[in-house]
């Protein structure tokens, strides 16, 4: 990010997500991409009279899938960061694009944590913080489960002290 004059620059949030996340994202991507490539392959083999160039498309698809499985989790691990201060929640996510979200804690309405079956195998959990805006939910994916519990407890404690209806 470049400085222009004295304009402020947003720094990245303080904490990374759990390193276990790389494994989790890899396994999810292998499952998803594997099904897709397999489906394409089967379709090519089963449909009678499919021209030869469809095979090349399937091959390309497989190459892209492998690249996705290898690169996506690593890039994503470098991009995903989060931070909770006494006044705000700040996250960054994405792998091709980037999304930075900031919400003041005084406007937080609910704090949820979620753990899917696959996430449980890797000891991970996700937190979602919602505000009164449909555009505003902030998700921190793939914290390790203990950290997630602590963060939820802390956020709940802070939001319990704010009183207005947060709109």
């Amino acid at each position: 990010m470049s400085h222009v004059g004295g304009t402020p620059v947003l720094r990245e949030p303080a904490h990374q997500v759990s390193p276990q996340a790389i494994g989790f994202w890899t396994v999810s991507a292998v499952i998803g991409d594997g099904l897709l490539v397999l489906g394409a392959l089967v379709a090519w083999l089963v449909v009678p009279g499919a021209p030869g160039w469809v095979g090349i498309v399937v091959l390309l698809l497989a190459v892209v899938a492998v690249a996705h499985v290898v690169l996506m989790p690593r890039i994503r691990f470098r991009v995903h960061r989060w931070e909770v201060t006494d006044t705000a929640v700040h996250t960054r996510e994405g792998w091709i694009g980037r999304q930075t979200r900031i919400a003041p804690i005084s406007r937080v309405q609910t704090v949820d944590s979620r753990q899917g079956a696959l996430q449980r195998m890797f000891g991970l959990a996700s937190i979602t913080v919602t505000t009164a805006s449909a555009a505003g939910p902030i998700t921190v994916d793939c914290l390790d489960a203990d950290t997630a519990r602590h963060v939820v407890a802390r956020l709940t404690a802070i939001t319990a002290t704010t009183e207005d209806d947060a709109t």
Partner: protein
Amino acid sequence: MIPAPGSPGEGWSRLSPRKLLLDPVKAIGQAIVPVVVALIGISQSDTRFWPFVFPLVVIAPLLFGALPWLTTHYRLTDSQIQVRSGVLNKTTSTAPLDRVRSVDLEASLLHRVLGLQKVQVGTGVDDDRITLDALRLADAQALRTTLLRRREAEQPASAPVLPAEDGTAAPVAPVPAPALLARIDWSWLRFAPFSLARLVLLAGAVGVVAQFGDDLPIWNEETATSAWEWVTQFAVAMVALVLAVGGLVLWLVVSVAGYVVQWWGFRLVREHGSLHLSSGLFTTRSITVEEAKVRGVELVDPLLMRLVGGAELSTLATGVEDGVTQVLPPCPRDVAIGVGESVLDQPGPLTEPLVEHGPKAHRRAWFRQLGNAVDVTVVVAVAWWFLDFSWLWVLGVGVAALLLAAAAGEASYRHFGHALHERHLVAGSGTLARVRTVLETDGIIGWVVSQSWWQRRIGLADLTATTAAGAERVLVRDVRLDVAVALADRATPGLLTDFLEPV
């Protein structure tokens, strides 16, 4: 109000007894087709059942009409409005008076004939409203005034209780006289044909006519062929002209009639700390939005209306069913801006020029639209590959799409822009229509800075202010990243401080 005998406890009132007329008429209206069909069926088969059927047809609606009236009670306590209803399952809805955000009155033609009003009380939770259908006009208005005034009294900050001259405190805060913000001006009718919202309605009507068209005598084969000969004898162009003129006249009639029906007697009034809108020729609507819940306004100049200098204005509010409430009919831009400024309590945000987003954003606006044009052309080209039509079509569509895209890209860039005007964030958007959204910075409850891969290459970002009001987001598109961060930082002082790099 009628103190009903046998009502459950103190202070409960029933709805207006005229509801006993309203509901049966409504029920008959809804059941008229099956009932008539049944009656015809019976009268054709056998007349013996008449003595049984006829009373049933009359009594059933009366009974069903009477039930809600018999079982529905409401009352106003010191702190709550309560409504009890239901025959077997009694439900009681309550709303704390200090949570009452809006009181809307509505009356269909039937309501108005009977002098009734339907009252809907909104409590700030999006879809939870208390409905009283129906009260006598005077009762409804008294209830509305009471509810809104009570709420105002609960907020001493906005309406201080002045100590009276003789030493006793005034019991109720002084209510400022209602201020008229706008009323219908029939010269605004000239904007009606330029507002395309009703085109959908017209299309529906045309569909209905087309359905009946099969039954009309002109479409038997003989007349059709002779008509066709006539058409070929005279010029086809003539027919096209007649159709065009006919469509235009039909459009004029429908749009003007629709405007009159919807906006008859339109008044926008500010009273008891609320904006109060009433209008309608047949069904009268009366919408009340608490001003403390209004977080901003949106000014829209639709493409056609801009040709004649018209605009539309909506308020962005929280805790209302649909956060965007249109508070003005299509009207001159000056009027919309004037009303908008008095709603915002500040001149400027609606008129001041916006900060442009620069040449890179300009290029992206073009590319986005050109991308659409390429998509369309590719689809047509693929169709040309498989089907058999002249390649000139592909060329024609391609050129037309490119020209349109260029125009749309240029227009959408000109509508881009942002500004921070004291307490208001202003964002310009829209491709064909020009949209200016003004949001109170107090209403911003978070930020999203979003960058696609392309945007990161050229240092642009989409900045979204999230809010509980209106469409729940305000988007500033394709702004330089550092400008976006600076804008967010200035709009919500302190929120970003912890996350900024030391300069």
